C-alpha cells in the first residue's frame, strides 16, 4: 500500500499532477472523512426524505381540509425555493433564533450543529418532492383495488400500508430514483454552512496544495461513483419488487 501511495508522490514530481489525497497521509484522512460525511448525509437524508414522502402523501389524502392545505403549503415552500436558500434560512435564520446551550466546557453552543441543520434542510427539500412523487404513484392505484380492500374490512390506514403503498411504490420508483440521485448531488450544498463533506474538504485541500484541477477531476469521479452506487441499489430494488404478469 505504501508503495502505491509513493507512486503518486513520484507522479507529482515527474508530471506535476498533484494528488495529495493519495500520497499525503493528512490530506488522505481528511478526504476519507469527507467521503464518509457525504455518505452519511446521503443515507440519512434519503431515509428521512422517503419517510416524509410516505407520510406527506398519506396526509395529502386526508379528509380534513386543513391537513391537506398544510401539506400543500409545505410542498410549495420546499419545492419552490432554492435548496441553498433553504439551508441558509435554517442555519443562519432559524439557527440564530434558537437558544444556545453550554457544552461540556461551559461554552454556549447552538442546539443544532451545521451537520444536523444540513440533514433537516436537505431532507425537507427532497421530502417535498417525494410527497409529489408518491402522490403520483398513489393516484395511479386503481380506485377499485382500494375499494376491494375496504370491502374486506381494511381501514384507510391499513389499506394504505398493505395495498396502496406497495403498489404506488412500484409505480413511482423511476421518479423516486431521479429524486434520490438529485438529493445525493444536492448534499454538496452543505458546503455553504461548512459541513465537512467531500466538496468542502476538497476546497480545503486545494487551498493548501493549489491542486484545483486534480481535485475537481477527483470530485467529479467520486460523485459518478457515489451516484452509481445509488442507481445500482435502486435498480436492484426495482428488480426485486417486480411482479410477474403486470407492467410494474
Amino acid at each position, binding site marked *: 500500500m505504501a508503495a502505491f501511495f509513493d507512486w503518486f508522490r513520484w507522479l507529482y514530481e515527474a508530471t506535476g499532477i498533484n494528488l495529495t489525497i493519495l500520497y499525503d497521509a493528512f490530506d488522505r484522512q481528511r478526504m476519507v472523512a469527507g467521503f464518509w460525511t457525504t455518505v452519511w448525509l446521503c443515507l440519512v437524508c434519503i431515509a428521512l426524505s422517503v419517510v416524509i414522502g410516505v407520510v406527506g402523501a398519506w396526509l395529502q389524502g386526508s379528509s380534513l381540509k386543513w391537513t391537506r392545505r398544510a401539506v400543500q403549503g409545505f410542498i410549495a415552500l420546499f419545492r419552490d425555493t432554492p435548496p441553498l436558500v433553504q439551508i441558509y434560512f435554517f442555519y443562519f435564520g432559524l439557527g440564530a433564533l434558537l437558544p444556545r446551550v453550554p457544552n461540556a466546557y461551559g461554552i454556549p453552543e447552538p442546539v443544532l450543529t451545521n451537520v444536523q441543520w444540513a440533514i433537516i434542510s436537505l431532507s425537507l427539500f427532497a421530502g417535498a418532492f417525494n410527497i409529489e412523487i408518491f402522490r403520483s404513484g398513489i393516484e395511479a392505484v386503481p380506485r377499485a383495488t382500494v375499494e*376491494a380492500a375496504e370491502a374486506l*374490512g*381494511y381501514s384507510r390506514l391499513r389499506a394504505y400500508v398493505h395495498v396502496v403503498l*406497495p403498489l404506488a411504490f412500484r409505480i413511482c420508483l423511476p421518479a423516486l430514483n431521479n429524486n434520490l440521485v438529485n438529493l445525493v448531488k444536492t448534499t454538496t450544498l452543505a458546503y455553504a454552512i461548512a459541513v465537512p463533506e467531500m466538496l468542502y474538504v476538497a476546497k480545503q485541500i486545494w487551498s493548501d496544495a493549489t491542486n484545483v484541477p486534480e481535485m475537481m477531476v477527483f470530485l467529479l469521479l467520486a460523485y459518478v461513483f457515489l451516484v452509481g452506487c445509488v442507481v445500482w441499489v435502486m435498480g436492484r430494488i426495482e428488480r426485486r419488487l417486480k411482479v*410477474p*404478469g403486470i407492467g410494474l
Partner: protein
Amino acid sequence: MAAWTPDQPLLRLADVHKSFGAVEVLKGVGFDVMKGEVVCIIGPSGSGKSTILRCINALVPIDRGSILVEGQEVNDPRLDKLALRRKVGMVFQQYNLFPHKTALQNVMMAPLQVLKQDKAEVEARAHRLMAKVRLQDKEQSYPGELSGGQQQRVAIARSLAMNPELMLFDEVTAALDPETVKEVLVTIRELAEEGMTCVLVTHEMGFAREVGDHIYFTDRGVIVEHGPPKEFFARASDPRTRQFLDQIL
C-alpha cells in the same frame, strides 16, 4: 332493538334512496333476504343494481331509508364498518385482486391483516378455499398470470376467507370470456348449494333461473317486479320487464 334471530331476514332493505348529484339512482328500494336464500337482481344498465350492492356493505352511504344486516343498521354513523364487512363479502366485476401478492396471499391477507388471525390457521383455510375454487395448483401465481375466470375465483376465495354471512356478487361474469363464465358460475352455484346467502347482480338469466330463489327486476331506481324464478320468467307482466326479457332471452 331486539337481538337478531335467524328467523328474521338476514338482510332487509326498506325504502332505500340514493342520489349521485342530481341523479336519483335508487328511489325507494326494499326487499328481504332470508338466511340461505339466493337473490338475483336483474335489470338494464344504469338501473341502480350495482349501487344497491355497494350500499349494502357501506361502500356508498344512502340518503334515506334503512338497510339492516342481521338487524344492524348500515345507515348509522356509528356503524362499525369492520364488523359489517366481516359479515358481508363482496366480489366485483373486475376481480380487483391485489396484483402484488400471489393468489394464496390474496386469500390470506385480510384474515391476517384485518382480523389478526393465527397465520397457520389462516394458511390452512386459504389452502382449503383455493382447492374449493379448484385453483390449488395456482396458489403461487400472481393475478397477472391468471385468466379472468381464475382471478375471479381467487376473488371469491378471498371473500370467503373472512367467513362472511352474506356474499354480494356484482356482475362477476360480465368481464369474462364465454368459456370462463361457466367455471365461475359453477363455483357460485356450489356456494349457494352449501347454504351461503347470496345477492347477485347478474345478466346471466339462465343462471338466475336455475340458482336463484327470488328474482328482482329493477329499472330506473325502483323494483318493478319480482318473484320466484319460475313464475317470474313465465309470467312477468310489466311491459318494462317483458321488453327487457325479450331483448336478453
